[in-house]
């Protein structure tokens, strides 16, 4: 600090007292900014100004909230837990690792018909996809089709980086633990033959992920298997990545099930989109009320970490799936704000006189 102003003294130490000319220069400019007199809007939060805001918030939020709540309530959703921990559950047999492949069937009834597009999710609980070690255990360059990253995956993938001296494609814990149950839905009609419901497996991943972020290794004419040459499948996988789907558009890194899985969930209880069920026509509901059964090829072990597996069928509105929270919150906040407005109005009225006299005494 001392250095500071001594240095300054030296700079202007020369003619500080010289009269006339320098005095003019040293005079500060009379600009609005320097004199702190910029034109300004000076709002003050008083009961008077805030009151209308509270009422307006109340009046806007409550209808919005009601709208959302109604929309959310109109959404049909059914959740079926097929973990099989309950001994009576048909999937209980699949808990032991010896039974492979294990197929179990769960019956359920839709009380109401599902109209419009229906979305089929699988849900996992107690599965920490957001664990730090897990989240970072991937190589985005490899998934983007970078040939060098394909053969030499990022260190972040450890311990799922190499297997038997071959690089794993796709590497990392996320890919390795990809969900591999197969779910099939059948409608048990009046006839003896159950009709399988057509499940669409495209359009479940983000368009940008499918087309930009995830890419197979380069080589348009070469078969997919060749492009993945020199790599090995993840340890827990049954099939290599290029055999995830017979259709080459949906195989390799751009397999949509894979892409969906790779988007790590925010919370330990999550659901991921599994299949779409498109509505056939306006007249028939997509899933009419009735009895259904779910055929599960049970591969994915969750019992070891106390996890649960669910299958969810849901219709979707403009605001997504069933979520009563937002509507309730809107209604609640709207009401609170309206109430506060009333309280403030009373206070304002009651104390106006006293505050006015206080002003006068100043």
């Amino acid at each position, binding site marked *: 600090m*001392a250095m500071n102003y*001594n240095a300054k003294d030296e700079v202007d*130490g020369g003619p*500080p*007292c010289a*009269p006339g000319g320098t*005095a003019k220069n*040293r*005079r500060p400019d*009379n600009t*609005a900014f*320097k*004199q*702190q*007199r910029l*034109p300004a*809007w000076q*709002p003050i*939060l*008083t*009961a008077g100004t805030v009151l209308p805001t509270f009422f307006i918030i109340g009046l806007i*939020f409550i209808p919005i909230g009601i709208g*959302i709540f109604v929309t959310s309530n109109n959404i049909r959703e059914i959740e079926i837990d097929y973990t099989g921990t309950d001994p009576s559950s048909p999937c209980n047999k699949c808990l032991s690792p010896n039974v492979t492949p294990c197929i179990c069937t769960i019956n359920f009834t839709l009380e109401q018909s599902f109209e419009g597009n229906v*979305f089929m999710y699988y849900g996992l609980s107690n599965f*920490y*996809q*957001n*664990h*730090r070690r897990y*989240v970072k255990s991937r*190589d985005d360059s490899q998934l*983007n089709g970078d040939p060098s990253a394909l053969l030499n995956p990022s260190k972040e993938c450890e*311990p799922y980086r190499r297997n038997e001296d071959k690089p794993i494609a796709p590497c990392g*814990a996320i890919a*390795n633990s990809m969900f591999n149950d197969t779910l099939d839905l059948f409608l048990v009609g009046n006839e003896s033959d159950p009709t399988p419901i057509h499940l669409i497996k495209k359009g*479940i991943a983000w368009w*940008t992920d499918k087309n*930009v972020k995830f890419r197979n290794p380069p080589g348009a004419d070469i078969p997919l298997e060749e492009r993945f040459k020199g790599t090995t499948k993840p340890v*827990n996988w049954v099939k290599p990545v290029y055999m995830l789907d017979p259709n080459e558009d949906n195989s390799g890194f751009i397999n949509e099930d894979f892409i969906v899985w790779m*988007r790590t969930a*925010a*919370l330990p209880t999550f659901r*991921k989109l599994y299949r779409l069920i498109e509505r056939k026509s306006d007249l028939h509901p997509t899933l009419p009320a009735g009895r259904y059964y779910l055929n599960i090829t049970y591969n994915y072990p969750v019992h*070891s*970490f106390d996890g649960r597996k669910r299958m969810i069928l849901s219709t*979707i*509105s*403009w*605001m*997504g*799936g*069933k979520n009563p929270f937002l509507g309730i*919150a809107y209604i609640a906040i709207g009401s609170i*704000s309206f109430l*506060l407005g009333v309280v*403030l109005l009373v*206070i*304002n009225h009651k104390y106006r006189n006293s505050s006015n006299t206080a*002003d006068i005494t*100043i």
Partner: protein
Amino acid sequence: MVKEDETFPCDLIFLSSSRADGTCHVTTASLDGESSHKTHYAVQDTKGFHTEEDIDSLHATIECERPQPDLYKFVGRINVYNDLNDPVVRPLGSENLLLRGATLKNTEKIFGVAVYTGMETKMALNYQSKSQKRSAVEKSMNVFLIVYLCILVSKALINTIMKYVWQSEPFRDEPWYNQKTEAERQRNLLLRAFTDFLAFMVLFNYIIPVSMYVTVEMQKFLGSYFITWDEEMFDEETGEGPLVNTSDLNEELGQVEYVFTDKTGTLTENNMEFKECCVEGHVYVPHAVCNGQVLPTAAAIDMIDASPGAGGREREELFFRAVCLCHTIQVKDDDEVDGPRKSPDSGKRCAYISSSPDEVALVEGIQRLGFTYLRLKDNYMELRNRDNDIERFELLEILSFDSVRRRMSVIVKSATGEIYLFCKGADSSIFPRVIEGKVDQIQSRVERNAVEGLRTLCVAYKRLIQEEYEGIYKLLQAAKVALHDRERKLAEAYEQIEKDLILLGATAVEDRLQEKAADTIEALQKAGIKVWVLTGDKMETAAAACYACRLFRRNTQLLEVTTKRLEEQSLHDVLCELSKTVLHCSASLTRDSFSGLSADVQDYGLIIDGAALSLIMKPHEDGSSSNYRELFLDICRNCSAVLCCRMAPLQKAQIVKLIKFSKEHPITLAIGDGANDVSMILEAHVGIGIIGKEGRQAARNSDYAIPKFKHLKKMLLVHGHFYYIRISELVQYFFYKNVCFIFPQFLYQFFCGFSQQTLYDTAYLTLYNISFTSLPILLHSLTEQHVAMDTLKRDPALYRDIAKNALLCWRVFIYWTFLGVFDALVFFFGAYFMFENTTVTSNGQVFGNWTFGTLVFTVMVFTVTLKLALDTHYWTWINHFVIWGSLLFYVVFSLLWGGIIWPFLSYQRMYYVFIHMLSSGPAWLAIVLLVAVSLLPDVLKKVLCRQLWPSATERVQTACLVSGPPLGSHPLASL
């Protein structure tokens, strides 16, 4: 050898100059800021050496003291060896020393020998002189920081412990889908726990707002320009504006509780005007138009009654001569006029320059009474008497002025060979030494003058015979040559010499009050600041000045603790008695101050003088001194104004220190203009220097320098208030926004297995404090004006609203922190319930953890910025630009950041996350809802507080709103 206009490269002993009389002129503007020319003297025995060969032939040794930083002190001795003779010993003082950094002026060249070089030079030693001052805001900031540090550590600790509790089941620690590497598994448990702890610390470290320090520094640095730019604080006369030497203490200006002000040059103009002189009871008043003639006026009654006889006449002339001779004034020829003063009506144009304006006023006054001091040449002082004859006196010795003795003397030899000692000084230091003269008459006159607020000096003389003089000469020489304790020995010698004087008369010089000094003091008192005047002047003079500047009002009851009173009573009795009167009243005072009517209550003014103060401060062996001190402080606290007179510079600092370290630790401000105020300026929390006439020493050592005392009002009431409001809001807001930032992160750990997973993307983590939320608060803290400037000036009582660090007290701090925690809970759980086990897109696709974080982050950025917008009372276009601009920047940045596959990044986790989030309707609804919920409690609190328990500031704000912008404010302000 140094040539004209060159700067001395090191500290030199001045051997000879090109001038015949062995002097040279030097300006030390770069050292102490005083631009006047100072004369230095070559060593007597060497001043004849004019060529390099001569210098080569010189054989001499120099002894000098160890290097020390005082610019004005030097003690040394030179032994010159002439051929074969005994060496000649000469004393060396500061007048022989040419300091590094000073510049040679008006002298062609000089020869010198280096004594101190490099880091030992006085200039270098002065660099590290100042101690660091910290503001109260900074101190509370550090305390808050420690609190946050504790929060950080406990957060990390909680999470680490939770992690290991949670992980105790192996399927959680290492489920099949998420195995550890071999290396991780083998790591020692303790080591692992420790690295986990550190990882949590890293994760949460943003709660310690490192960027706050940067922003605070920037705010202080940039903000201090507003002081320098202030046009109202620019002084037209001197062409000086305010100076800011340190920007660390801006906000401290808004916290001042005690102002210690010097009187001379601070409250008063220090523009001395010779009013009258009194010789043996006859009063002379010079008139402006007197053409160098004596005009003893009718105003002096004694004068008419008794026309001076022959003896009186002689005395009178002796008095004039004494005043003419007893000083240290230099005379500047016209061509080198640089000094502040020119003699107004002298035919021969010359200017007197002196470090003391009193002397200049005296010599000029005497000039108008007929005696003109011409110059000092070859040790002869020349003066022109009434008959236009030139008289020459040989100057034998100068016993220079110091503030302890409070007098100075010269010993001169007249042309007729008579040796006189003339002594001039404060009455208290002269009267005890007088053995002859009309003491009573003069004393009564002096006292009368003092009551009128005039500065009085007494003049006495003594005729010496040759033998006496030789004795004196030896005494002085011995003292001067001494290497150790030279000061003390000199003082002793002076003591011996200056006695048995004959009183000649007294002079009175008027020192006018600075313009608006009274107004300023009144405003400061209204603002709840206690004003103390510390002066070296005598009590009557000082009290008169205090009345004039309304420090004491007519109804003020004066309490005196003075030497005079202490002669009658013991200190103990006096103090007890006073405290009884004061405390008795203070009970009613405190009661009344609640009702805001304290102004009507009897207030007390305390007068204390230096001697009494030193008695109070003196540590007693029985340990009762602390009692006195406490008692004294008690009395002082209950007095509205305190006047301390007869203060030595060090005592001023002592007083400041006493108050500074008293129970309440009040913030003190010292303001002064002279070298004697430097110690108190350095001691006080805030030191303000007046860029005055007594040199720039005070301004140089101060934290802020202002041209006039009246500027203190704006400095404290407007700038100080603004700075305090701004910085405290800045500090609180920073803590708040970092709590908002990091608390969701903490909560997220409970949902991700305590794995230190970040909620936000790295770019957001980095840029949050740097670019998304930094500029609005910085600009807010530069431009915020919660109340218009004019209102602050008009209503000083508003200053009380922020006293005692009111905006950074624990209550406010905890409020902000809890607000931050509340907002964080809203962000996090709002987003949590949105995302929990559902989809929020109309195409059924799901979002991942990064979308979750981005949603929280978006809500947070908007809330935090809008919260600032709610706090802004002064929306200039800059605020609009910055607040809306930074929100826009956040959106644009996010779009860009997620819009491209960045080739240099190893991960693409943010790809299209933001855009997808915006494509979802519920996300928009959630953002609106959560922002509204977060802001609601704060708005509510503000409105309710304003309505139910309004502070004075808020009342004024509301009043302004009702009555429109106050008169005199900018017409556009109402826009």
